[in-house]
């Protein structure tokens, strides 16, 4: 029998070599984004391939200059886009988590006849991609505006108008999301039945059980839902593109696209600084919540 030790050492070396090369390839685009964002324009768009600007000591001041220029751009108002994104994210994450948990409770801890059917319907809607409903969804919100105009509410209370406001982006979140309902329902099915039976004997209502027993117990699952939905809102492009009409209501994703598409050319170093501003918060969030996120994805859709 040949000695397996050398061949094992070689295969292990090849494995680490491959993994290092792959990691480099996957990180390189982001490294290059940050690197470009701290260079002066003349060095960003040049034949010079270097991570840091020349001279290296100019890096901090150049970075400060580029990021300040992006942040204070008069035509593209990133501070306002950040605020809008956070408003949509906060309102949708709260609504999504709470409503999905309620529906999941009704589909797992309440025993009733129609729940199998409703669960099937929930799963079926998971298959429907947003582009299929986006056009008529726009008309639904426009009809709400029209109805309010007809009732004399609208020109009077302009803040209630749907189209052009952030509302169409977060209101639907308050009615639960199919995937999140399914995820939480799986979690609730796994909780022991004795929990709520004992509470019922003590005279607790469904609301009390949900609020004081189920919700506290499902904190990890709720965190996964909240995290997924926050990332979804932060990334969403097509929703804001359809519903937002004025620049001062834009979200970051839409603002970034506006910044790129501006008349003339935005220089690459500033575009990369803007991209870094949009990417960085999600990456920081990932660093903090890595385990929750990875466990959430590995369990999605696979465990029955």
């Amino acid at each position, binding site marked *: 029998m040949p000695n397996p030790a050398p061949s094992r050492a070689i295969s292990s070396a090849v494995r680490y070599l491959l993994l290092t090369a792959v990691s480099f390839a996957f990180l390189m685009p982001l490294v290059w984004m940050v690197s470009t964002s701290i260079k002066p324009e003349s060095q960003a768009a040049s034949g010079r391939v270097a991570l840091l600007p020349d001279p290296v000591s100019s890096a901090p001041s150049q970075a400060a200059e580029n990021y300040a220029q992006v942040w204070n751009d008069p035509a593209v108002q990133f501070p306002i886009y950040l605020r809008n994104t956070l408003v949509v994210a906060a309102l949708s994450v709260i609504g999504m988590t709470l409503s999905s948990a309620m529906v999941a409770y009704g589909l797992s801890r309440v025993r009733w006849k129609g729940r199998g059917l409703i669960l099937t319907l929930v799963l079926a809607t998971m298959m429907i991609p947003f582009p299929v409903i*986006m056009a*008529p*969804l726009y008309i639904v919100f426009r009809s709400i505006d029209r109805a309010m105009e007809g009732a004399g509410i609208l020109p009077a209370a302009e803040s209630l108008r749907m189209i052009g406001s952030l509302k169409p982006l977060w209101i639907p979140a308050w009615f639960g999301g199919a995937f999140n309902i399914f995820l939480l329902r799986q979690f609730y099915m796994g909780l022991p039945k004795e929990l709520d039976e004992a509470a019922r004997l003590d005279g607790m209502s469904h609301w009390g059980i949900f609020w004081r027993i189920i919700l506290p117990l499902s904190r990890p699952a709720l965190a996964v839902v909240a995290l997924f939905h926050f990332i979804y809102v932060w990334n969403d492009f097509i929703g804001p593109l359809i519903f937002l009409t004025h620049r001062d209501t834009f979200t970051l994703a839409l603002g970034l696209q506006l910044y790129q598409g501006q008349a003339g050319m935005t220089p690459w170093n500033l575009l990369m600084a803007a991209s870094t501003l949009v990417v960085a918060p999600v990456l920081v969030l990932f660093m903090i919540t890595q385990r929750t996120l990875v466990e959430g994805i*590995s369990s999605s859709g696979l465990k029955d």
Partner: protein
Amino acid sequence: MTSPRSNRRRRFRETLIGLAWTSPWLVGSALFVFLPMAMSLYYSFTDFPLIEPPIWTGTSNYARMGDDPTFLRVVHNTAIYAAFSIPLCTILGVSLAALLQGRVRFARFFRACIFIPTLVPLVAVAMVWMWLFNGEFGFINQALSRIGIKGPAWIVDASWVMPSMIIMSLWSVGQSVVIYTAAMQDVPRHLYEAARLDGMTAFQRFRHVTVPMISPAILFNVIVMTINAVQVFAVPYVMFRRPDGQNPAGHFYTMYLYENAFVYGQMGYACAMAWLQLLIILALTGAMFLASRKLVYYRGA
């Protein structure tokens, strides 16, 4: 003892409670999913320029598709994109998970590197890659020129648009790697030991033990990737729209659907495209489930 009557009353009460708890989704899906779907089915048989009420035109929107060169092109582009990116992403994803399998030092770091790109917002993905692919000063062509290769004008040159799109899709393979990794961890160790005793090489063990055991995860990922590929929008929208019009090689199904609905004021045609898109997704998913009966191994099934 409870009488049948009070029993029935209790069941009725419980149904009401169940309906109350699920009412957010019942109301929400009616308003924001089923109503729009029904509306779009109706609009798909009408001429509807949005500023005027819809006019019934029968199946003309569907009939028109076959004669619309732009429609045929976006179908073609989207199909080519899906046909290349899905198999390549699957091969890459399974291979990366296999590389990370077992006791690997720094596995967490490697996995994080592969996963991080999937978190990057799509508009930023488009932006970063536009810069990397820049024909003159982009990192990729600069690197290629160091080894004596003159890189193409990637996202400008029509024949390089599709390869660019496919390369970008490979960059976001990380989520599927996480799922494959989890599936591989569930493969019973004794199977590998038995395979080793049978004298199987590492590649044979991968081919005959790992791949069949994770086939449900592969099916799941392929279906998710198919649904995503058919609706690809944000990245090509940001990258390939030009002030002077669309780069035809970078025109995809959902982009054309969006333009019909919100730019050209052809809501009826857009809705017909949306319904066709849904049917295509259902057909592809159904076909995959059927094909998978022979190919996918379910433990205990």
